[in-house]
């Protein structure tokens, strides 16, 4: 709207503030000077005054009821922190759940009971073991991954003893299992002479030795002497359900279910409380 009664935007602002008496003395004098010299500015000011008067005359509406708070409303209105806390708890639980699921998929933590391994090997008579005089003394060095038994800390694991695990797992087939490490500390691990030519194995072994009491993956030491060595790339002999639990007695599955339940219940509780608050208003 650029017509006679508007003037420039800045002039309009000055006149508007002048009308409200919100200008400094210096600017007020400037406006008064403008008004005396510019009839258009005076007209703009007059129209502004009419607009303000019309707005000011709008009737005040009566409140439909008293807005005083009842004790119940005051109480219900209090747990805003509770709703927010539940929302945060739900979010954190969901994030932890995702983290555990990721760990579960990417870093399987298992331990195979020694006796189960022995039986499985004997049953299958794995060719890799034929050249070994005794499982207690010799080891077959192949590209491998070490998977630890329970260590008393760390992710995953469970509350079952290896023997208990074995009782559940003894019927399982163990393909391509190459060795059981028994009563052999990692530092004492000596490659079989027949395999000494395997340079990749040597380098892997040297890396392995460079980290005392640590396996090549996750740095978990086989101090319980119940770890297993399985061929790299071979399908895992145990289904997911048989993975070991942590010392706290919580398996991956248990933790995941707990987190899922916590997340869902906290979100539901926050929703119900919030809804109840809204209903009471």
């Amino acid at each position, binding site marked *: 709207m650029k017509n*006679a009664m508007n003037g420039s935007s800045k002039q309009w602002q000055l006149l508007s503030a002048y009308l409200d008496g919100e200008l400094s003395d210096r600017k007020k004098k400037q406006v008064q000077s403008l008004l005396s010299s510019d009839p258009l500015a005076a007209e703009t000011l007059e129209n502004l005054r009419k607009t303000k008067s019309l*707005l000011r005359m709008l*009737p005040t*509406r009566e409140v439909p009821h008293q807005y005083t708070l009842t004790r119940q409303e005051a109480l219900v*209105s209090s747990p805003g922190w509770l709703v927010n806390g539940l929302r945060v708890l739900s979010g954190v639980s969901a994030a932890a759940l995702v983290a555990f699921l990721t760990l579960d998929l990417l870093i399987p933590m298992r331990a195979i009971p020694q006796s189960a391994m022995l039986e499985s090997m004997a049953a299958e008579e794995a060719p890799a073991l034929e050249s070994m005089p005794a499982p207690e003394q010799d080891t077959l060095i192949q590209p491998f991954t070490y998977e630890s038994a329970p260590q008393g800390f760390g992710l995953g694991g469970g509350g079952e003893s290896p023997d208990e695990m074995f009782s559940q797992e003894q019927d399982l087939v163990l393909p391509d299992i190459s060795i059981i490490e028994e009563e052999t500390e990692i530092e004492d691990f000596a490659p079989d002479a027949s395999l000494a030519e395997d340079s990749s194995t040597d380098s892997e072994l040297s890396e392995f030795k460079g980290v005392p009491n640590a396996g090549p993956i996750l740095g978990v030491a086989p101090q319980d002497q119940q770890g297993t060595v399985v061929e790299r790339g071979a399908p895992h002999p145990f289904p997911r359900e048989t993975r070991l639990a942590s010392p706290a007695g919580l398996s991956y599955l248990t933790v995941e279910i707990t987190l899922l339940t916590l997340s869902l219940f906290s979100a539901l509780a926050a929703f119900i409380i919030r809804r109840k608050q809204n209903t009471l208003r």
Partner: protein
Amino acid sequence: MDESALIQQAKQGDLDAFNQLVRHYQTQVYNLACRMMNDTALADDVTQESFINAYQHLKSFHGGSFRAWLLRITANNCYDELRRIKRKPSQPLYPIDPDSGEEVEDPVWLTDDGDLPEDFIHSKELENAIQRCIDQLQAQFKAVLIMIDVQGMDYKEASFAANTPIGTTRSRLARAREKVQHCLQRFAELLPQKYRFKDENIQ
């Protein structure tokens, strides 16, 4: 009413003291919400929610104008509600013609020849016309215009309530007045003679 004492008592959990403050300010809060929302049911909800919010956050009030603090909460709730309505429009702001099913663009305005402004302003048509012009403003401009021109607050108090610097308040108010004035020219026949704008035929 010793406002400071009531606020201190309310901060310590005295609900009766808070309710005295509510009774004192509820008309202004409700009217700001009414003018902002142009819907009495929504204004009712916003007003109640504003007092509940005020009670919840009373400890964050550290002096100054309690009215401006209350109106800031109310304005913020109005912004939220207007945004929600914009996202999910459920009902038109203006009446629907039952025959055609279309929005009534301009009701049949009646010219009132009375001399007193109150006679005009009390006519529902003129009030609706002014309200319709206010509704065309953006929420932030609307809040400043209502606080200063309708409710009579000064720039400083309105700036606190609108949470903007005084310069921003000044420019928003000027632009809001300009738009409302331009809009009101469409309803010139409703305006008392002494309130009709000069050069109103110039577009």
